[in-house]
């Protein structure tokens, strides 16, 4: 079906667990409420969160590719 991942066993959705990683990392505020270490003059608090935007996007890409791969091999 267009647009919906094939509902084979639930295990197909396992890759999505990867997406919990950015959630936990970013909600754990005390872990990044600091000024050091700096990157290019930018305090940790700021560049760390910006980095997580990119890491999070990367994880979505990975999950997407895995799921597309699973869908293709199921055809």
């Amino acid at each position, binding site marked *: 079906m267009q*647009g919906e991942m094939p509902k084979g066993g639930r295990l197909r959705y396992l890759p999505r667990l990867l997406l*919990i990683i*950015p*959630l936990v*990392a970013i909600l754990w*505020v005390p872990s990044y409420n600091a000024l050091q270490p700096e990157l290019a*003059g930018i305090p940790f*608090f700021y560049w760390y*969160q910006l980095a997580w935007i990119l890491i999070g*996007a990367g994880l979505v890409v990975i999950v997407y590719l895995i799921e597309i791969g699973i869908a293709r091999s199921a055809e």
Partner: protein
Amino acid sequence: MNAPATIVFVALFLLVTVIGFVAAHWREADLNLLHEWGLGGRRFGTMVTWFLLGGDLYTAYTFIAVPALVYGKGAIGFFAIPYAVLLYPILYVVFPRLWAVAHARGHITAADFVRERFDSRILALAVAVTGVVATMPYIALQLVGMEVVIGALGFPTEGLIGHLPLIIAFLVLAAFTYKSGLRAPALIAVVKDVLIFVTVIAAVVVIPAKLGGYGAIFAHVPPEKLILAPPSGDSLGAYSAYATLALGSALALFLYPHSMTGILSASDGNAIRRNAALLPAYSFILGLIALLGYMAIAAGVGEDATHVAGFARYGSNYAVPALFLTSFQPWFVGVAFASIAIGALVPAAIMSIACANLFTRNLYKEFVRPDCTEAQEAKVAKIVSLVVKIGAVVFILALPQAYAIQLQLLGGIWIIQLLPPILLGLYTRSRSAPALMIGWAAGLATGTYMAATQGFASSVYPLALFGVTLPGYAALYSVVLNLLLALSLTPVFNLLRSRRLAPAGR
């Protein structure tokens, strides 16, 4: 009046006006059908969806308000970034599923989905009304963004003459939205994004260079503002406030009618999934935009005599315009301001279309004229979209800016109450509309109450639980209550229903 900036500004504005009208012929179809006018015919592939959702998500208000918060309050204003980190996994997992159901059943709005899934007109009505009411202040706030840059161009902002630019801008917006529907903002979003990217890249390269590098910029910011104040005593303080602001905002964003519209107009679920990977580009830009607040501090715009009037009138919202005026050549100021103003037009257009979709399908067609033809449906939607925009303009012109901001705060608390019906509708077999109604009502009341206790100046409520104070986003707390009620009352109502249908002693 800043002549070079104004000329560039007006030229770009004219460009998008033309595009707005021409858009009616893009992927040409009968714009008298609601799904063509209101959803672009559901033919927007990955890239167009990217521009459209980006147009939804990154608005003039974002460009002005996020840096303003950082400028005024420091680290806590950066919550827009963790919010963005949380957003995309949610988008990836939940919304293609909603898309699939909506596509299969011909739903245009969230209320359509709820109506069918829970077989309840009342619940659908609640969803529709919540959506419309929560969006209207948001539209009004886009105008605030536009007003600030028009004022920064040097136009007087008092009296009818002062309001004229805004009124003209809105008439233009109203006209091409009426004509072209969703295609207009989708196409204009391309121009908007190019302008915003250009402006932001210029800002994050040119301005730090002028100010002596990022290290120097951060050095200008008082240290206590630079990170969150560590909590003291029995409170989780800024930590829980920050995390809940991020989480609550992420959960709420896609519940807004205009986000729904953006999602449901995609051509397939994979377009949405791909966007979950591509849209973060916008969020990264948003992170850089947030840092403009600190750049404004470092550039000393608050001490600059030329900006005193602007800050007096617009408060911290003047930080970004002031920064651009100080740092850029006049002609580029025109480009930058145009990107903000166009960044107001696109979401305002999409939001008004989304409200119109909701009103037409779930209020007008449902309760007033069920037998209306498709052409009548589209006509009503076009008119409603117009009325909504007029209402927003009147609101902004007649009321103090602070009211719009407060209403927007409440809007966020209200819109998040739509989460349980969507989640339960997609992931459970619950059929209990009464349970969801009770949850919805309780969430609305609690969230509004929490904001009221803060005098509507803040949506962070100090929740006291087991001896610990957890200052947190009222929207999140209230939706948790909503969800808990819905989940726990569902079996109760199901039991009552089965008792009623199959009387005891059978």
